[in-house]
């Protein structure tokens, strides 16, 4: 497998007057779990469709696993697994038959098919219900089965388009855990689209943020958090009156303050020593229980990028 699993150069796709993907240039290293983040309608699904060769780009080009998406899309699909917008399961079929069909599609031998189906269904806790029609299953179970289907042939590259969308928090967490353990050997590259930032933070080694088809940022989650430049302090306590907040904002290292449910969040101007802040709070009569020095979450980074782009 090449070192770069996915490479796009000014990849663009128009639908009539709408530009869904706008000159997207990025690289995804082989073995990475790459999070492609963006709000609804930002061009994530269109990008996956182009990478799989299901849609032709209007301009630009993309190479996946060393193959051009325009000329060798069949070879890309042969080496990839995909869980797209919909689970894509045959609801009249049992779980076993769904996996059986796609295992046959990928030319797994009879013994290998049986072993792999058992391995995946066992791992996902679905083996005992393998004979049931999928139509009777919950959405969470269907998504698990769809993940199993995407992995049945041990692909080099896995596309997951919002795999936990529409799931309740428990089902989503279970699916994330299953997914993490299934791709833990790190042999496959994963291209994951989501607007669940906590999910991206937990799963991804690299992320890119897209909005209205344009790439806003790309890098390791830590790099993005550092680039966002919003270190912050969180203080739990009482007595955070408007006067206290006014006094705090007079300190040069304080960018902004916000109080919610007795928790004071202070955005700092760069890495700062918190001692002057704590001293000031005590001096003006606030009561402090806990102090946390924090970094921006991926959500902070994402929201900041969205705000900057809107501005």
């Amino acid at each position, binding site marked *: 497998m090449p070192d770069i699993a996915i490479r796009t150069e000014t990849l663009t796709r128009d639908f009539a007057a709408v530009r869904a993907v706008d000159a997207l240039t990025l690289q995804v290293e082989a073995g990475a779990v790459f999070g492609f983040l963006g709000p609804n309608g930002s061009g994530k699904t269109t990008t996956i469709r182009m990478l799989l060769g299901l849609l032709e780009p209007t301009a630009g080009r993309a190479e996946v696993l060393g193959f051009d998406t325009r000329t060798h899309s*069949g070879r890309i699909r*042969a080496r990839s697994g995909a869980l*797209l917008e*919909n689970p*894509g*399961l045959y*609801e009249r*079929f049992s779980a076993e038959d769904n996996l059986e069909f796609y295992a046959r599609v990928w030319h797994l031998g009879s013994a290998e098919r049986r072993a792999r189906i058992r391995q995946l269904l066992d791992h996902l806790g679905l083996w005992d219900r393998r004979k049931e029609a999928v139509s009777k299953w919950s959405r969470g179970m269907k998504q698990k089965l769809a993940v199993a289907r995407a992995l049945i042939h041990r692909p080099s590259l896995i596309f997951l388009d919002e795999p936990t969308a529409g799931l309740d928090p428990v089902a989503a967490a279970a699916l994330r855990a299953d997914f993490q353990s299934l791709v833990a050997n790190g042999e496959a590259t994963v291209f994951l689209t989501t607007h669940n930032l906590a999910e991206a933070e937990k799963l991804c080694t690299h992320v890119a943020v897209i909005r209205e088809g344009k790439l806003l940022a790309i890098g390791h989650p830590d790099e993005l958090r550092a680039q966002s430049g919003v270190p912050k302090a969180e203080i739990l306590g009482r007595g955070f009156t408007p006067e206290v907040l006014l006094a705090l904002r007079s300190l040069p290292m304080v960018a902004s303050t916000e109080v919610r449910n007795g928790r004071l969040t202070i955005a700092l101007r760069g890495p700062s020593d918190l001692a002057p802040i704590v001293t000031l709070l005590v001096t003006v009569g606030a009561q402090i229980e806990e102090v946390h020095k924090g970094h921006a979450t991926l959500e902070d980074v994402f929201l900041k990028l969205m705000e900057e782009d809107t501005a």
Partner: protein
Amino acid sequence: MTRDLWTMVWKEWKEIFLQRGTLRGGVFTAIAIPLGLLGIFIPWQEGPRWAESSTNSVVWIWLPVFLVATMICESFAGERERKTLETLLASRLDDRTILFGKLAAAVGYGWGLAMSSLVLGLITVNVVHGHGPLILLPAATVLLVATFSLLASTLAASAGVLISLRASTVRQAQQTLSLSLLGLMFGGLFGIQALPTTWKMWLARTLSGATLLTTELVGGALLLALDLLVISIAVARFQRARLILD
């Protein structure tokens, strides 16, 4: 390609047989009932006349067309309606395998069932009514029925696939196919009626002058040409991007 085609046929047949919820129920409805009716009940009732009746040939030709037409609309419109199409298109199967797999499944079911009930009918007639020499269909009739029913059901399947490629729902595909078949049938009838008298007389003279074999060969060649034409159009119109966006 053969292995992939068989995989597609396996999947399509499984979907047909699971329409009733269980495999047993589906096999009973989709295979046992037609076989019992056409291969046992009717031959039993009609006796040796069953093997001599020329109207039966028409039934054997139309039966697979009817069976194919009932299932082919499901092919792409059904996948689209049930949101399984994009995942199928994202697999390693190539365009022709998907298209011909669906055609083969429909024709294999319709034609296979028709031929099986023909054979079963012969067995039934001989077992129930045979007292002496074997009751058999003339070889020419068997050849005619087998060839024409195959060509006619292939035409129905390829027209159905063509319609199903662009239809957003199975119902829409079924309505369009039904109207197309009706149009073809009545169009042919009224078309001949509308011909100038001299043309009609020439046609009647040609047909009465020709041997049955010649007429069959011409008819078969016409059907084959139509099959190839419609299949070619379906192959040309099978575009993954359009299938996903429709």
